[in-house]
């Protein structure tokens, strides 16, 4: 990084980045704990996630305030300006991520009242793992300023979509088979949607990191396999006998 002649200026910038990283860590933990609370039907953990969301909001507010102060007092240019703006963008993406995690935890509380549905929560857990790993990768890329790592997260966004689509069909099949599960399945469906949105925020962060380091926008359309069901007309899953082979 560039050396600043004014000592405090560099300090302030570093502090801003460090705050964003800390906020990232908190958001990561929120997502991981929310998924854990679903998988283990852990009511206490879900409550803790809901409570902790306030902290993320405070951090978001602090970072914005500090960034605005820095822009007003130091008038950063070039990479410093990008770093400052990047901090604001990341903070709002992370805050949204926290909100989505909170929503998952709230639904986990409702699910914990009903019958356990291990098969379906396991699918949510798998998708959640994937999404948390992406969030972790992109935050690692931010702390280490690695464009390549950020790019790889950006490029593999379709994996999350694929999981979401599979889960969508699975849930639909379940609901058709046993209408009593519709309430629980709807909550799970929203959870899956929330996870997919968290994945989108991770992709946004990857774009911000890319811009912050290179000064250029990510070129081209994000790779996307198919329209996700729920957004476009989704083909109904077939319930009739399917001769597809199984995984051994």
């Amino acid at each position, binding site marked *: 990084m560039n050396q600043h002649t004014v000592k405090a200026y560099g300090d302030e910038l570093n502090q801003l980045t*460090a*705050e964003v990283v800390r906020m990232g860590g908190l958001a990561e933990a929120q997502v991981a704990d929310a998924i854990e609370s679903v998988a283990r039907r852990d009511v206490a953990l879900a409550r803790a996630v809901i409570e902790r969301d306030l902290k993320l909001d405070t951090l978001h507010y602090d970072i914005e305030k500090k960034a605005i102060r820095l822009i007003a007092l130091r008038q950063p240019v070039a990479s410093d300006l990008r770093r400052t703006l990047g901090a604001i963008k990341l903070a709002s993406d992370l805050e949204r991520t926290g909100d989505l995690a909170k929503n998952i935890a709230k639904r986990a509380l409702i699910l914990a009242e009903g019958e356990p549905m291990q098969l379906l929560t396991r699918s949510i857990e798998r998708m959640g793992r994937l999404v948390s790993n992406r969030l972790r990768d992109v935050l690692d890329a931010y702390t280490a300023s690695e464009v390549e790592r950020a790019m790889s997260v950006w490029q*593999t966004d379709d994996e999350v979509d694929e999981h979401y689509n599979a*889960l969508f069909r699975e849930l639909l099949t379940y609901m058709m088979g046993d209408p009593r599960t519709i309430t629980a399945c709807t909550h799970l469906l929203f959870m899956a949607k929330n996870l997919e949105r968290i994945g989108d925020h991770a992709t946004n962060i990857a774009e911000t990191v890319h811009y912050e380091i290179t000064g250029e926008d990510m070129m081209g359309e994000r790779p996307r396999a198919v329209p996700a069901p729920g957004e476009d007309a989704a083909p109904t899953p077939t319930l009739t006998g399917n001769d597809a082979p*199984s995984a051994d």
Partner: protein
Amino acid sequence: MSYEPQQSPVAPMATSRLWTAGASGGLAVIILLVLAVMQPAVAGWMVMGAVAVAFTTWFVNRRPVSGAAYAPLVSEIPAEATGDTGLMTDVFEASFDPMMIISGGEADDIAGRRIVLANAAARELFPVSAAGGLLVAVIREPTVLEAIDDALFTGEASRVDYISGGANERHWRAQVHPLPEREGFAYEGQVRPEALVLLTLKDETDLRRIERMRVDFLANASHELRTPLASLSGFIETLKGHAKDDPKARDRFLDIMATQADRMSRLVADLLSLSRIELNEHIAPDGRVDLSRATSDVLDAVSVLSRERQVTVEADLGIGGADVIGERDEIVQVVQNLVDNALKYSSAGGKIEVTIERGRTLDETFQSRMADSTRLSLVTPDREQGARYVVVTVRDHGPGMAREYLPRLTERFYRIEGQKSGERQGTGLGLAIVRHIVIRHRGALSVESAVGSGALFAAAFPLAPDRKSVATQPIEEIF
């Protein structure tokens, strides 16, 4: 070395006041004596002055040695302290557990938490230099950060358990212990007393895994063995009862029982090997395996079965250059399971293609190899700069799978709805075993498939470095 033993500030040095006082006194005496020789008129006065200066110098020089002013400071630091610092540093460096010393800075400034010292184990685990850096750049886990803040500013020691994510999950116990405040850890020129804490990480992955393995094994075994056991006891009852004197029925029943018993023993074997692999998942293998030779061994072994089922196996393996870091038995098992699967879903007259690709980057291993199909990555390793992989791909031309089934493929006992069970029924653990072996090897696994046009599995393993460079490396390190 992360820690330069510094000279004690109270040790006598060439530039210290002791030395200069003696030297300047001596110089003054000499000058006065020279003057006395040159100016005989005032010689008496000069000699008297020289004596006075000499006496004063002696007096001043004598004081610090026996005087009270410096004594307490000297006695505070044991005489052997300088010698011990080296030993302490070595002990700190040699510890198997990652250890870091963290300084506090301002209470409300997260950028003030800096790693001032990190031992070898910590430097291996985290991207941190010996000279330290920002704490948050290394650990983001909020519970650990909180514990460190508590220790820094309220002086409370604590323990926190956390899980570090990634392809290879690890369970850590972080122990935070406050250290006495200390001056001299200068950060960018500012020297002030700073609060310090010692952070020690303990890897508890083994413990947790053993715990989980026991639970999983019991649950799986009891659930999956129930059905064949029930059928076995049913047949035994029939054989004891009305089928007692019917040799034809008895033979048929015994055949079925043999199949069930065989399935049970395969299931137990698979469960055991899965548990073993899962247990070692976080320990990277360090052997060398020629992937193309391992693959050709597997193909030789299945040639009898494939001929029996009238399936042709086309192999494009090449020779050499396919050495990967791995354990031979496990890599053979990966190829074996993938080929078995392909065989199972190939009809008579079908074809299986096996290829080896060398020196691929991670992004290249992710490329699509089958037209008009859905690709899904089942295992993605942590990205490493400049890592190369050798990929083995197994493709069948069976019925294929619809895209919605792909994410769950590697789940234990997962079966796609409405599938026909083959003649040789699988245990439902094959791909789960493949997945865990690939995770352990820090490799990648992906599947491509489309209904009606078969499936392609690609397993990538990290390329082993050239033997030559391996042999020369230690020598370079010594010099």
